[in-house]
């Protein structure tokens, strides 16, 4: 479970995140929705301890990230916005590198790696050097290495970004599988359909603040709009930066 309490982050004069609070529960998919530049990636970066918040705190399974960032990272599987692979290593070697860094025992790591390669349908490129991978192959490898240590909490920053239709469908199914395994899944997106289809809970961020934190149904009721897209536009105040 991930609890975020009153996070603030300022870059110079820009208030990127200005008092964000929400909770992502185990066995649920929580969607972080907002237009480009709303503060989604910054919020996630503070969550996975790459950035230190100016104020507020993050609890992952009850552990304060400001107190023990290493323990927090052990409990997180993260697909960051940046998903570069090592081009001169094969997909398997890329995954193994992270397994070793996470301190996963060798046998356990190999078993998980092969399971992920199968689930993510990576078999035909797992032993190729990452140089020249397609966007989909890159994302799959990045997800496999992020989940190699079997984390209870999964953070995905725009996981379907750049994927084709088939790959996007598979990615969504994969997220549902993660939920079915009882994990806490938090992902960010600016694509409304995706959020509407997948999420148990939607956290809408605009201009660094949480403007809604509800189930999709509640969101529709709350705004009085039957169409989710209209609901978003109403909440955010403009349709700018959102994709259908």
């Amino acid at each position, binding site marked *: 479970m991930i609890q975020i309490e009153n996070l603030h982050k300022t870059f110079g004069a820009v208030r990127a995140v200005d008092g964000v609070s929400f909770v992502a529960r185990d066995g649920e998919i929580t969607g972080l929705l907002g237009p480009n530049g709303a503060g989604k990636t910054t919020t996630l970066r503070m969550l996975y301890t*790459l950035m230190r918040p100016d104020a507020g705190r993050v609890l992952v399974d009850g552990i304060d990230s400001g107190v023990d960032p290493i323990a927090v990272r052990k409990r997180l599987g*993260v697909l960051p916005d*940046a998903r*570069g692979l*090592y*081009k001169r290593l094969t997909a398997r070697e890329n995954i193994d590198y992270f397994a070793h*860094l996470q301190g996963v025992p060798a046998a356990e790591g190999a078993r998980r790696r092969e399971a992920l390669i199968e689930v993510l349908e990576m078999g035909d490129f797992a032993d190729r050097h990452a140089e020249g991978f397609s966007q989909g192959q890159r994302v799959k490898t990045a997800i496999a290495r*992020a989940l190699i240590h079997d984390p209870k909490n999964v953070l995905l920053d725009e996981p379907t970004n750049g994927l084709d239709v088939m790959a996007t469908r598979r990615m969504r199914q994969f997220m549902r599988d993660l939920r079915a395994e009882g994990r806490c899944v938090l992902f960010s997106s600016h694509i409304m359909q995706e959020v509407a289809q997948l999420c148990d809970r939607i956290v809408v961020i605009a201009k660094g603040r949480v403007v809604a934190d509800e189930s999709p149904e509640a969101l529709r009721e709350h705004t009085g709009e039957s169409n989710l897209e209209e609901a978003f536009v109403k909440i955010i105040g403009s349709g700018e930066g959102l994709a259908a």
Partner: protein
Amino acid sequence: MNASLVVFLKEVRENLRDKRTLINALVTGPLIGPLMFVMIVNVMISRQLNQAEAPLELPIIGASNAPNLVAALRQQGFDPQPPVADPIAAVRNRDAAAVLQIPAGFGASWDKGDPAQVEVYYDSSRRDTQPSVSRLKDMLERYSRLTGGMRLVARGLSPALAGPVIVDERDQSTPRSRAGALFSILPYFFVLTVFIGGMYLAIDLTAGERERQSLEPLFVNPVAPWRILLGKIGAICVFSVSSLLICATAFTVAGRFIPTEKLGMDLGLGPVFALKVLVLMLPLVLLIAALQTLVAAFSKSYREAQTYLGLLMLVPVLPTVLLSVMPVKTVAWMYAVPLLAQQVGITELLVGGSVTAAQVALCLLCGFAVAALTLAVTARVYGSERLAISA
């Protein structure tokens, strides 16, 4: 497994697959120094030998005005060339190193017993012609002295009257020390090798990794940044030490191809020398790796890092240039300054002097202390949140 070791092994393995890094670390970096060195030294030596032994071929104008003088010059190894129309133009256009002109009035002055004048045209700003010019002047001087002596004898006087002071030169240089003066640039090649050997790796492992957006995922792992840094520094050091080993070996081999004995010089290039150089260079390996990583961490891109490191490469030239322009006595504190310590230490080894254990200890102690400090600063930068953010 220790996280630093994981990072180290991965970086070494990955970069062994990279041709550019390999060529730089194992071929260009270590071999460019010895190769340039052998070439430069061979050219220098053969030129000096030629100039000292070959006949001095210079144009002479008005040779018929002083046949005895010309004959005396011939005996000293002068080979008169056909006259040129304009001696000034010939020297300026570099057609001749110098031109000797004997005026028409030479014979008349000579017969009267007046000083007879000859003219030597040359350009003192052309360093390459200096040996020729001074040889010509020496020949003329010797002829003048000889003739003057004979004139004194003819008048019943001792030639010693004309030379009240005699200088007896006692050169205290040894074959080794003469070689050392010539080869003072050599320590720089060792530093350069370490620099080039690790440079691509240093750029790639920080600036490159950030540019390829893999630094952020790496830092999400539950590993303290300084542990990641240690692994990366270790990988850089392995490559630069390999460079250094190859370079030292190449110099040992190159020593056999340098005809120093022809110049009466002796170079101390051998396995023992190579080994001592390695020891002296060790702190510099770590220092340069940390410094390169620090620069790469501050750079926004691969290209920027390349530019900065190219400039940084000029810094190690400073002690070499300083010491060759202003040769100073080696004093104890010099062994406490990284770069300078290697310069004076390696030069000392080269000229056959000895470097004491205390001097080596001082060099290693101070070198590693500065390296550790640089490493600490780099670790701080590695821990800052801005480092990993790609965009």
